[in-house]
């Protein structure tokens, strides 16, 4: 993954999480991952197109998702209902949008697709011939993994 793309995603995730959850955010070590990897339970996916092709996946466990959605809405949510899903989707949208804005300032043009939310157990995600950059974020609600798999358009 192109070096210039990394920071905008890390910064955007950090800023937005800090802002919407109003808490301390700790960033874990970045690393690269290839082939198939398990998804924790709730995954919001935003597609990217333009100078690159690929997608960003926001991956968290169901309990983390509920806790995050509860904090963002200011009420206790107990099931992954419409509101909880919409909240996680919106979070994914906010982070990706801010990253894309930052990238735009650097001169890279990206378009994004509306987020799609996946929930379920024992899910896996595979990308053909693209390795994913994993940005782990620790918040009091739990761990959110931001999984960026993009590549230059040939």
């Amino acid at each position, binding site marked *: *993954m*192109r*070096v*210039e793309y*990394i*920071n905008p995603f890390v910064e955007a995730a950090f800023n937005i999480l800090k802002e919407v959850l109003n808490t301390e955010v700790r960033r874990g070590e*970045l690393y*690269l*991952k*290839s*082939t198939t990897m398990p998804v924790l339970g709730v995954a919001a996916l935003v597609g990217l197109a333009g100078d690159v092709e690929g997608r960003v996946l926001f991956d968290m466990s169901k309990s983390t998702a509920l806790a995050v959605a509860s904090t963002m809405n200011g009420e206790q949510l107990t099931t992954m209902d419409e509101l909880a899903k919409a909240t996680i989707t919106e979070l994914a949208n906010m982070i990706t949008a801010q990253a894309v804005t930052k990238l735009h300032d650097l001169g890279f043009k990206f378009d994004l697709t509306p987020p799609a939310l996946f929930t379920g157990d024992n899910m896996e995600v595979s990308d053909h*011939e*693209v*390795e994913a*950059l994993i940005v782990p974020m620790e918040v009091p609600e739990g761990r959110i993994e931001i999984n960026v798999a993009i*590549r*230059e*358009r*040939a």
Partner: protein
Amino acid sequence: MDTNTATVEQERAAPQGRVNTIDYKMVTFSLAGKDYGVDIMNVKEIAKAGRFTFVPNAAPYLRGVYNLRGDIIPVVDLRVFFHLPAEKKSDEALENMLILRLGEHVFGVVVDNIDKVVGIQSSSIQPPHPIFGDINIKYIHGVVENQNRLYIILDVVRIFAQKEEEKPRILSETPSGSYYAPVTGPISVPLTDSVIEARDEGGGTDLDFIKQTLFALKRFAATPLNEAWVNRRFEEWKKIQKSSDLQLKNIEDADQYLETFYSPYSGNFWGEDFIQAILQTLPDTASRTIQVWNPGCGKGFETFSFACVLRKRYRDAQIKIWANDSDLLAISQAPNMVFQLDDVPEYFREFLVKGRNGYTFNSTIKDSILFEYHDILNSNPFPELDIILARDILSFLPPVDQNRIISDFSEKLKGKGLVILGKNEQIVEEGWTSLGKDPVSAYTRKE
């Protein structure tokens, strides 16, 4: 009168009937007087265009390429493709063109006239019958009647997919003769031989231990790739240490052992002597683009050096370098390196521009390099490469991966492509010809 009312009624009824049932829209056009349609989902836009840029040696139906707002797209003349009579227009005249998008690819398709968008019910599409149209039946998706006109729906995906298939087939045929068979077993064979040999000299176990320690401490894997050096170095090591204790006890020892392994100017700008040596191995090429892969580029000194060398050597070519490293810290600094003029050798100074904090490489050099955070052990999706510059990286991969990556190199390399390894690295497998002279270790695939 009667017939008129009938048509009007029919037309009035038709839209109402269609409102609920339209589930397929096609863009219709004519070729040699007959009506054709393509699925609107494949049509990006329509345009009038002319003065296509001729491409020599291309198939006759390829009219050339066209600049569609900055994107260069191939333009296919469907009439020629299907051997239909085409009206000869003057060079200046504009042709009617459908711009199709199939997957990642965008094509221009020249037709006689573009008609309109027709909505139909997909169930009304009938399978093609050989008597319709002058077109090879396998390219026809179906036939549909709409308002007394018969449209032949072309299967554009098939038309263009078929052309794509042809290309890789030719490509895969060429290297097959020299195709490098991935080595799975043989790696251990030469190793054991040499171990036995060394053991006869009484130093085998020591060498074995050293090899193991090097791998444990420095992830340096002793394999046929670097065996010559490891053995040579062991002899030197015995002289240096003198004592009976040859073992590497800690990382400092291991570093000291590996001291002479690294290629010249690792992690630094290349010196004049090395540049000259590299220049001697670079082939003469008529190619307009030179694609380079530089795994393990670290902080980018090597990449910048090589970019400048290539720029001077191939003045007119377009140079593209993919530089990767899995060390995030090192590679993050690479794109924005700033130097003091004194730190940069004379050779590279013509490519520098002065910035606020010091000197950086000019945009020609910078734009030719793409620094990526990438692990070579993951899939390496690069296009066909002219040169792979991988100095001192393979030796630091586990033996199995060394073989895998070398066969990966072979696959990614163009026919006359060049692999440049570290000073003390050799490809011992079949199918490679050594080109370079010390300190450059370069290989091409055997024809």
